[in-house]
C-alpha cells in the first residue's frame, strides 16, 4: 500500500512538479485582478461569439447562479468558520421580494432586484443577531431551522401565493439574465478578493481559527461576523431576486431549497473553501456533473449529490485548491531543510502564507 502510494506520488511529481504548481498558485495569487478581468472578458464574449439563448445559455447562467451562492456561503462558512445550513433562506427572501414587487406592485424589475438585496440584507441583520451567538452544532441546526421556518411562513401567507407559489410571466430575456448573474458574480468575486487582503478579511480568518483569541486581541467579533453574514446575505438575496424571474415560477419548495443549500456547500468544499476561486470552480464543476446526470438519469442527481458530499468530506475535505496548495508546499518544506529545519523555519513559513 505505502510503496505503491510512494510510486504513484513519484510519477505524479515528475509529470506535475510541486514547484511549478507552487509557482502557478503564486502567479494566480499575484495576478488575481488580471485573471478576474480575463474571466469576465471570456464570459462576456461568449454570447457575442454565438452562444444563443437556449439550453446551454441557461446551464451557464445556472453555473453563475450557483457560483454566487457557493461564494456567498463561503464568506461565512469558509472564511469565518460558521458553516450555515440556512443560506437559502436569504435566497428565498430575495426571490419572493422580486416576485411580489413585480407582480403585485408592478414595480420595474431592476428596482425590485435592488430591493431584493436590501430586504435580504435587513433580514440577515435581524436573524444574524440571534443565530450568530451560537457556535458549532447549534449554529448549524439553528440556521437549518431558520430555513425551514421561512419556508413554512411563505407557505402560509397569502401574499406569497401559499404552497402553489407564484407564476411570473413578464420576464426579461435569457440573455439579460446571463449578464445579470455574471455581473453579480464578478462583483462578488471582486469584493471577496479585495477583502481577503484587508484587515476585515484577516479578522474573519482569525475568527475561524480561534474566536476567543480574536476577541482577546481586541476585535469586536460580533461586528465582523454580522458584517460577513450580511454581505453573504446581500449577494444571496440578489441571486434569489434574479432567480424568481429567471425561473418564471417560484414556490416555497424551490425558494427555500434545503438540497440546494447542501449542494452549494458541496461546491464550496469541492473547490476549496476559504478561497476566492475554490467555490467558483467547485460550482462550475459540480453543476456540470449534475446537469449531465440529470439529462441521462432524471431524478438521480440528488442521489449523486449526497454521494458527492460524502466522498468530498471523507476523501479530500480541503478541496481542489486546498489539495493543490498542500501539494505545492511539499517542495517548499524540503527546500527549507525538511524536518531538521522545521522548527527554525516556523517563523518564515508562517510569514510566507
Amino acid at each position, binding site marked *: 500500500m505505502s510503496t505503491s502510494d510512494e510510486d504513484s506520488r513519484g510519477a505524479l511529481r515528475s509529470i506535475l512538479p510541486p514547484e511549478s504548481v507552487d509557482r502557478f498558485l503564486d502567479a494566480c495569487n499575484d495576478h488575481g485582478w488580471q485573471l478576474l478581468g480575463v474571466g469576465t472578458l471570456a464570459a462576456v464574449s461568449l454570447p457575442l461569439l454565438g452562444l444563443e439563448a437556449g439550453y446551454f445559455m441557461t446551464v451557464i447562467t445556472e453555473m453563475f447562479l450557483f457560483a454566487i451562492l457557493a461564494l456567498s456561503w463561503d464568506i461565512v*462558512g469558509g472564511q469565518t468558520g460558521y*458553516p450555515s*445550513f440556512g443560506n437559502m433562506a436569504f435566497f428565498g427572501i430575495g426571490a419572493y421580494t422580486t416576485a411580489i414587487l413585480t407582480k403585485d406592485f408592478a414595480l420595474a424589475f431592476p428596482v425590485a432586484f435592488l430591493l431584493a438585496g436590501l430586504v435580504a440584507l435587513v433580514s440577515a441583520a435581524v436573524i444574524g443577531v*440571534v*443565530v450568530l*451567538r*451560537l*457556535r*458549532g*452544532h*447549534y449554529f*448549524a*441546526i*439553528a440556521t*437549518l*431551522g*431558520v430555513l*425551514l*421556518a421561512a419556508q*413554512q*411562513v411563505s*407557505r*402560509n401567507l397569502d401574499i406569497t401565493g401559499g404552497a402553489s407559489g407564484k407564476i411570473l410571466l413578464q420576464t426579461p430575456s435569457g440573455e439579460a439574465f446571463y449578464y445579470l448573474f455574471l455581473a453579480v458574480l464578478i462583483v462578488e468575486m471582486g469584493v471577496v478578493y479585495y477583502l481577503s487582503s484587508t484587515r476585515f478579511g484577516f479578522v474573519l480568518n482569525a475568527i475561524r481559527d480561534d474566536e476567543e483569541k480574536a476577541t482577546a486581541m481586541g476585535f469586536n467579533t460580533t461586528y465582523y461576523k454580522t458584517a460577513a453574514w450580511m454581505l453573504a446575505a446581500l449577494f444571496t438575496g440578489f441571486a434569489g431576486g434574479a432567480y424568481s424571474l429567471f425561473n418564471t415560477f417560484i414556490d416555497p419548495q424551490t425558494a427555500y431549497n*434545503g*438540497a440546494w443549500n*447542501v449542494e452549494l*456547500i*458541496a461546491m464550496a*468544499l469541492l473547490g476549496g473553501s476559504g478561497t476566492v476561486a475554490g467555490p467558483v470552480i467547485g460550482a462550475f464543476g459540480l453543476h456540470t456533473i449534475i446537469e449531465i446526470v440529470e439529462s441521462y438519469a432524471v*431524478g*438521480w442527481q*440528488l*442521489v449523486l*449529490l*449526497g*454521494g*458527492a*458530499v*460524502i466522498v468530498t*468530506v*471523507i476523501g479530500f*475535505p480541503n478541496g481542489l485548491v486546498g489539495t493543490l496548495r498542500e501539494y505545492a508546499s511539499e517542495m517548499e518544506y524540503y527546500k527549507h531543510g525538511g524536518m531538521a529545519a522545521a522548527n527554525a523555519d516556523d517563523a518564515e513559513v508562517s510569514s510566507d502564507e
Partner: protein
Amino acid sequence: MAATQFVVNGLLVGALFAAVAVGFALIWGVVDIINLAHGEMVMLGGYTSYWVLSLVTGNAEGSPLLFLATIPVAIAVLFVVGYALQRTLVSRVIGTDIFLTLLVTFGASIAIQQLAIQAWSANPRSIQVRFADPSMTLGGIVVPKMKLIAFVGAIVLTALLYLFLQKTRTGRAIRAVSQNPEAAALVGIDVEHTRAVTFGVSSAIAGGVGSFIAVILNIQPQMGLIYTLKSFVIVVFGGVGSIPGALIGGLLLGSVEELVAGFISSQWTLAVSFSLLIVLLVVKPKGLFGQGVEQ
C-alpha cells in the same frame, strides 16, 4: 376542555417524538455527532413495517397484533443499517471538524431519501390497522386506541433503551465510551464497535417508532428531516445526554405543537417550534434539565 384534549393528543404523539429524540441524544452524547440522517431511520423503519405487512397480507392492512409483529423486523433491519452507517461512513470523520461530520450525515440523509423516492415514489403511504371500535372516550376525552398503543410502544422502547444502558455489559461499555473514549479503550473496550452499536441501537429505536408513525400518521421519503430537527429541539429542551430530559422534552414539544395546531393552525407548528428552539438556545443553551453542554 378543548385544551385538555389537545394536550392529551400532544402527549400521545410526543412520546413518539421523545423516543426518536432519545436515540438522537444517545448518538450525540456517545459519538459526539449530530446525526442528520436520524430522521431517515424513522422513515426506513416505517417502510420496513409497511412492506413486511404488505408481503404478509397483500395490502398494508392488518389486525393490531399482526402489525405489532412487524416492529421487531423494523428494529432488526434498522439496527443493521445504523451499525453499517457508523462503520462505513461516520467513523471516518470522527474527531475531525464538527462541520464535516454534519455534512457526511446530511449527505447520507439526502442519498437515503432520494433512493427511497426512486424505489418507492414520493407518495405518502400509511398502514391501516383494523379495530372494531377505533377510539374510546375517557372522561370526555377521545383517545384513539392506536395512538394509545403507539404511546405505550414508544415508552416501552425508551424504557428498554434505558435498561439496556444501565444493566447490560454493552450498555456500560457505551456509557464508558461516552465518558472517556481513551480510558475505555485502555480497559479493553472496542471503541469503534461500541460506537457502531450505539448507532445501531439508536437507529433501531427510531425504526420502531417509524412503524408506529406509519400507522397513526403517514410515511413518505422526505419526512426524515422534520424528525431530525424535532429531535434536536427536544434534546435542546431536555439537555444533551439525559434520557428523562428527552422524554419530558418530547412530551412538551408534542403538547406545544398540538396546542398550536388546535388553537391557531396546524400549518404553523413547525415555525412555532423552531422559534421556540432559537429562543431557548439563546436564553438557556444548557437545556431545561441538562447539566451543561459544550457550545
